[in-house]
């Protein structure tokens, strides 16, 4: 059986992170946490963050209920935000959101180029406008955590 016709959005990376997330656990010791809720599709995520002394993100973990896209996105996010400052993380979210909305990977020099490359497998969701919010849910929760609020907004 060939799965070629299924793969464009559900590439190996997404299937892998969506089904076996690396960071899909609650942090034992954390500084902030926030939830994201997508009532339209029932996706839910909670993010925990631990800061380093210089206030960069030392560790991120999450628990999520939802589709493969939302879980893969949360997992990839937890991976790429480590070591980043809050401002840097927000800039990355802006670039990521532009990417999943337009399907174009923004041309970012320097710091953001690397993480965006890692997030690129999610680019395919732009073809499904109703699923962009699946890809951004964890990021909204992360933004809420960084801002010290309990609950993130959604798209």
């Amino acid at each position, binding site marked *: 059986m060939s799965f070629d016709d299924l793969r*464009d959005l559900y590439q190996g990376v997404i299937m892998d992170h969506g089904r076996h997330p690396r960071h899909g656990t609650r942090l034992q010791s954390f500084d902030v946490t926030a939830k994201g809720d997508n009532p339209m599709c029932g996706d*839910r995520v909670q993010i925990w963050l631990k800061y380093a002394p210089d206030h960069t993100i030392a560790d991120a973990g999450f628990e999520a209920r939802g589709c*493969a896209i939302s879980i893969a996105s949360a997992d990839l996010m937890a991976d790429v935000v480590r070591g980043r400052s809050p401002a840097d993380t927000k800039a990355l979210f802006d670039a990521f959101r532009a990417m999943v909305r337009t399907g174009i990977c923004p041309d970012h020099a320097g710091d953001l180029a690397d993480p965006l490359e890692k997030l690129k497998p999610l680019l395919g969701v732009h073809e499904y406008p109703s699923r962009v919010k699946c890809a951004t849910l964890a990021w909204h929760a992360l933004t809420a955590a960084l801002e010290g609020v309990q609950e993130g907004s959604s798209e």
Partner: protein
Amino acid sequence: MTAHPKFDVQRIRQDFPILSQSIRGKPFVFLDSGASAQKPRAVIDAMRNAMETQYANVHRGLHWMSERTTESYEAVRDTIALLINAPSRDEIVITSSITASLNLVAHSYGRSALKPGQAVLISGMEHHSNIVPWQMLRDAHGIELRVCPITDAGELDMTAFETLLADGKVGLVSITHMSNVLGTYTPAERIVRIAHAAGAKVMFDGAQAIVHRQVDVQALGCDFYCFTGHKLYGPTGIGALWARREILESMPPFMGGGDMISSVTFEKSSWAAVPHKFEAGTPAILEGIGLKAAIDYFRAIGYEAISAHERALTEHAIARLSDIEGVQIIGRAQDRGGVISFTLDRAHAHDVATLLDRQGIAVRAGHHCAEPLMHRLGLDSTARATFGLYTTHEEIDVLAEALTKIRKFFK
């Protein structure tokens, strides 16, 4: 079960231009008619013809074009009356959707006939459009909102239903005639009998039921019935409310404006007779003409043939989907129709819907505007396949094969 002798689904499919398309290089398999149905050529032609040859505002021009347009628009009222066997065309209020019909009743009947302290009874498997207007009425007018639970099989719990009516406080039962998630038909005659005995009026949300099953409001004995045009192969932006004449006459208008008055001065206006009292403003003229064409098309094929076809499809689908490991069909009502919600053990409903779409198959996924029902079922979302008169057995086979493949993909 064999198909009705008169029913040739391949010929019917030719009446629906959209179905001959390919999506992503695959034949278009449309299993989302429960959300909105496709339109036959007859509807498209009727609306285009009106725009090309016969269009003006209705009910007010004294010129030829307006008179002719009024005739062809008003004909939809007769057609709807025939469709549901209403005693009179004057009992058909044309609205913009079933949502508008339900809000009309909640606002007008709810604030006049229902008194604070009385209750409205709905069920645990309502569409949001039959929940939210009653919550708004509750908050504004002080009525109580009661919810009749459903059983694990996805049927109305009739013991609870009787209990909830027992204190005589329920003034109105507003309930779905067929669940848009579980496919369950509610036992309409029985509901009416029990409710009337307890002094309550009954309204049915017929959005799904009327598409699949003959509705006779006189035989049902209900007091209100409403439906929406776009699920019945007609255009969007048009629906209907039927209610007994004496009820309509007792109800105050909902919206004020042109067309619904008999005379206006700055001191006082008087209302037009029913049903026009409830039809403020220029109506959806083209949509009315389109809906008439849809109902004519539908009635020419006939409920008997359509119901038999859809029954066979539903049986086939339940058999095929039950055969796939990991697929769970949600709802096991005895009396059910061509609305099948399901989950797949390895993949979320949204992933299922997206991956079906990759194979040209359109289903819906989510909470289907019935969040409280999803909570009752302990689910966040389901995928849902719904059938129309143009759906084929082969399309269900395509769905079954695609689901098998998706499950392997998620191994």
